[in-house]
């Protein structure tokens, strides 16, 4: 009897079973996942840079340890995700090459600058908060290795979000200058964070397949709304003002009405016009290039060791 692979794949999706690396899968599904997971991995790696910008200036020993551990976690997430993507038949070198040459995308939020210590707090609170909204959904993604990587990543991310909020708490209840710093960070990060959920549903080119394949389970607008609802309360507690005059509770939808971010700016930053796009990519390229002789030395030494073992 001939097995109909496509029916088998569809029936797994219908039963909420995981698709595993050795299972048959449609080529578009594979491509979609490689794109999404590798972009996610790149985002973690590039995301080390804006926060890393404050490691040497963290204002207390404790905050320095916390930030350093956080940036290291992001690197660890990058590592799991590259491994999950490799299970789909792409090599780490190919993915890195796509990042370094600017062919691959990463989350555009990391092209915004971290200008003050409050930005480290705001990135944890808002950016990690938004990332968690996306990632909680991805824990139930249909591709097994991705789903499992997300379970682990989500635990750490929610820790990071609490740490970010803790920084905001110290600032918001601190001196007048600290409170100003916190408000300024919220003003600058609010709309870029709303953009993280992607374009409005009516304009989102990749969403339809992603929902059908259960790679994504909620739409961009649904997630964005949930994020706004959650964050308004948190800002109120801090005594900070969300920079949106139209923000208003809407009883009929049991959620807040809010202003759209500037989608023209969104497209412009994705195209490369953010103040940090070039610097982020240059920093990645510099580290890669300066590490080349280190990697070559390790490979050469490893080879010599193997040869001497064979000879002995």
């Amino acid at each position, binding site marked *: 009897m001939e097995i109909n692979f496509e029916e088998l794949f569809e029936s797994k999706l219908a039963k909420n079973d995981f698709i595993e690396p050795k299972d048959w899968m449609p080529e578009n599904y594979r491509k979609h996942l490689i794109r999404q997971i590798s972009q996610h991995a790149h985002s973690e790696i590039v995301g080390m840079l804006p926060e890393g910008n404050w490691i040497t200036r963290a204002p207390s020993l404790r905050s320095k340890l916390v930030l*350093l551990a956080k940036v290291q976690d992001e690197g*660890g997430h990058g590592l799991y995700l590259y491994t999950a993507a490799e299970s789909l038949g792409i090599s780490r070198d190919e993915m890195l090459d796509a990042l370094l040459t600017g062919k691959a995308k990463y989350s555009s939020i990391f092209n915004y600058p971290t200008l003050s210590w409050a930005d480290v707090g705001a990135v944890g609170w808002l950016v990690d908060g938004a990332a968690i909204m996306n990632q909680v959904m991805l824990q139930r993604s249909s591709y097994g290795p991705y789903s499992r990587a997300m379970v682990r990543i989500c635990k750490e991310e929610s820790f990071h979000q609490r740490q970010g909020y803790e920084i905001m708490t110290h600032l918001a209840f601190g001196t007048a200058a600290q409170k100003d710093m916190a408000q300024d960070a919220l003003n600058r990060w609010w709309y870029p964070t709303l953009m993280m959920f992607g374009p409005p549903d009516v304009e989102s080119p990749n969403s339809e397949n992603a929902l059908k394949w259960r790679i994504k389970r909620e739409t961009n607008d649904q997630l964005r709304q949930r994020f706004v609802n959650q964050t308004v309360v948190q800002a109120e507690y801090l005594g900070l003002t969300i920079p949106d005059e139209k923000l208003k509770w809407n009883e009929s939808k049991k959620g807040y009405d809010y202003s759209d971010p500037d989608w023209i700016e969104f497209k412009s930053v994705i195209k490369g016009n953010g103040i940090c796009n070039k610097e982020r990519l240059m920093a990645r390229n510099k580290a890669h290039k300066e*590490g080349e002789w*280190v990697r070559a030395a390790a490979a050469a030494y490893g080879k010599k060791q193997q040869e001497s073992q064979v000879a002995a």
Partner: protein
Amino acid sequence: MNLNDALFKYSIRLGDTSLILAQRLSEWTGHGPFLEEDLALTNITLDIFGRAKSLLEYAAKIEDKGRTEDDLAFLRTDREYFNALITEQPNGDYAKTIMRQAFIDCFDLLFYTALAKSKDETLAGIATKSIKEITYHKRHSFSWVMRFGNGTEESHTRLQQGFDEVWAFTEELFEMNEVDEVLLKEGIAVDLSALKPLWLKEITELLDKANVQIPEGVYMQKGSRKGIHSEHLGYILAEMQSLPRMHPNAKW
């Protein structure tokens, strides 16, 4: 110098040495030669910052003037810092960072193993916790010295250059002054002169296996025991202390 003064100065010296080294190492985070190595070096950096925090906490407690470990780290001037000169030297390339680290790891393992037997319980406790960490750090830096020394021509050249830039700062690690004398009598401090031949033997063996030449008659730099540093420390502190100094009444 009374015992309390000596103990404060000793803890500060150890705390500062860990703090400035970790501060230097943390410049690599996010910029390492490849992802796994970036994570490994950051782990090491975290251990060393953690040790710095414990030692400065203890120094603040000994001093008993209401200062915290953060006050000590962020509100002292370069002349009040007593970190070893080797720790403030710029990272350079990865070979120089690794060479500096191998020298320090080798010293630290000998030092903290001895300090674990100190009659001061807090220092002995911090040392005991550190031994396990430093054992791993040393394995890491020593194995990279071997890779660089025996890897490619380029890595070997870079390792030798890294060695040449750092070697002159190693002897200072063993310098003793009145602080050591006072505490040695009480069984609190480590006798650094006893560590030196052990260190030299291990390092000579390592460098020999890595084909690194040790030139004769290198002038050995010192000064940190008196709080006199190279030009680099001023910049490190300017960067590290900028926020607490800009906002004197703030809590973070």
